């Protein structure tokens, strides 16, 4: 068969020499290798105390942004739901009533906005599809849970809490 990597070695089953038969030199060289590893610097990160920094483009759990006046950006256009390859997003739209102008930026808003975190593959296509700067993927990890129904994140978990207006990537909803 043609070799793909060109690194294949032909194994020759030849008679072992006396030195090889004694095995002790091979054992000794093996022990030299392990003792070298013994004194190597360890790459361990002491997790709860030390944390590895996430990549700048890390895609974690979602957030629905508000604008500077605390109004929800989302207009329930449904482009994110269409873009989603895992079909994890479902939206129910509603019309903004009189007196709700301080809550929603435009006339149409999302009455429910649910992301199924078990389906979501964190590809970030919703973020790319959004024309209103509403949905972003943060650096936060999607937390574990015991119940499947708790993985469907509604607006209660997704919408940015009032009074926080950091950059969407560095925004950390669960940190106090």
């Amino acid at each position, binding site marked *: 068969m043609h070799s793909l990597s060109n690194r294949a070695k032909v194994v020759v089953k030849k008679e072992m020499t006396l030195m090889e038969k004694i095995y002790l030199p091979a054992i000794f060289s093996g022990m030299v*290798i*392990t003792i070298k*590893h*013994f004194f190597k610097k*360890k*790459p*361990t990160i002491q997790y709860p105390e030390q944390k590895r920094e996430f990549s700048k483009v890390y895609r974690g759990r979602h957030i629905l942004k508000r604008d500077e006046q605390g109004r929800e950006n989302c207009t329930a256009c449904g482009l994110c739901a269409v873009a989603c390859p895992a079909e994890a997003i479902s939206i129910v739209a509603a019309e903004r009533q009189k007196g709700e102008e301080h809550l929603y930026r435009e006339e149409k808003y999302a009455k429910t906005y649910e992301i199924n975190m078990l389906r979501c593959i964190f590809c970030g296509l919703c973020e790319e599809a959004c024309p209103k700067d509403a949905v972003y993927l943060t650096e936060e990890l999607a937390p574990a849970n015991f119940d499947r129904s708790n993985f469907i994140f509604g607006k209660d978990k997704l919408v940015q809490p009032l009074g926080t207006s950091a950059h969407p990537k560095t925004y950390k909803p669960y940190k106090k």
Partner: protein
Amino acid sequence: MEIFLIDKIVLIVAVFGITLLIALYSTYAERKVAGFIQDRLGPNRAGIFGLLQPLADGVKFFLKEEFIPQNADKVLFILGPSVSMTTALMTSAVIPWGNSLELFDRVISLQITDINIGILYVFAVVSIGVYGIMIGGWASNNKFSLLGALRASSQMISYEIAMGLSIIALIMTTGTLSLGEIVQQQGAPLFGISGASWNIVYQPLGFLLFLICSFAECNRTPFDLPESENELVGGYHTEYSSMKLGFYLFAEYTNMFISSAIMSALYFGGYNFPFMDQLGLPHNVVTILGTLFFFGKIFMFIFLFMWVRWTLPRFRYDQLMRLGWKMLIPLALINIIITGLLIIVFK
């Protein structure tokens, strides 16, 4: 007489305690060494550097459910680990932990008992040790346990022969079976350096054979076939839980400590260290230094045991038997012949 008894009881309790302590911390050292060799850190959460880890493990062992399988032979099932542990601890009686101390106007020997057949005693007790494994494996009424026990017993018997033969060559040079005397002889000067006439100089091949055989006797990798996890679940201790399992594991580490002590005593001068008489120190100081040196040598051997364990893969069973019967035994016999010839030529 009473004073003699008190001396001995104090010594016995001390040796017993130190043996258990070292066995306890060998488990910690094993995990640390394994971690470091595999580019990890090993246990480091319980206490500083994880130093309390053995205590945590001990507490866990005691709190685990004590389970005896329904079809197991209850008496033998309990007897197995007891025999293992007892025999592992018995050997320490003849090891000379140090020279003598001059305290309270009398001389106290730091060897519990210097019986004149010390080496024979060690071999006898070690051979009983295999009963612990055999009984435990048999009483479990489980095929994996039985296979592990069978492997252990045939391996021990095979390697005991080579071990005994390699010791015979040593006894030919020393002319005594008493461990105390063997160690004392090694305190003789070599090339003008006192306390350096170690038997390793006269018996390098014998030492190598003895080392390999002690790895096999302690069921340590690459000879850990009796408990090979990936073929036999846990080998002879598959059915054991709680402190009974703890006893088996503990016995293994105790054995490792004791065989390290015996190797240091037989081949590496025991409590003798170079320039021991030329330093001009008082006798008691030299004795204490010697004991420290002896423990240093023991720790080196324990480290060697662990180092090898995390380097080498396990033998296949036919390879194990081939090594034991077709290589080590002939080599040991050749070693005896060479030693005999050299004794005739030089004496």
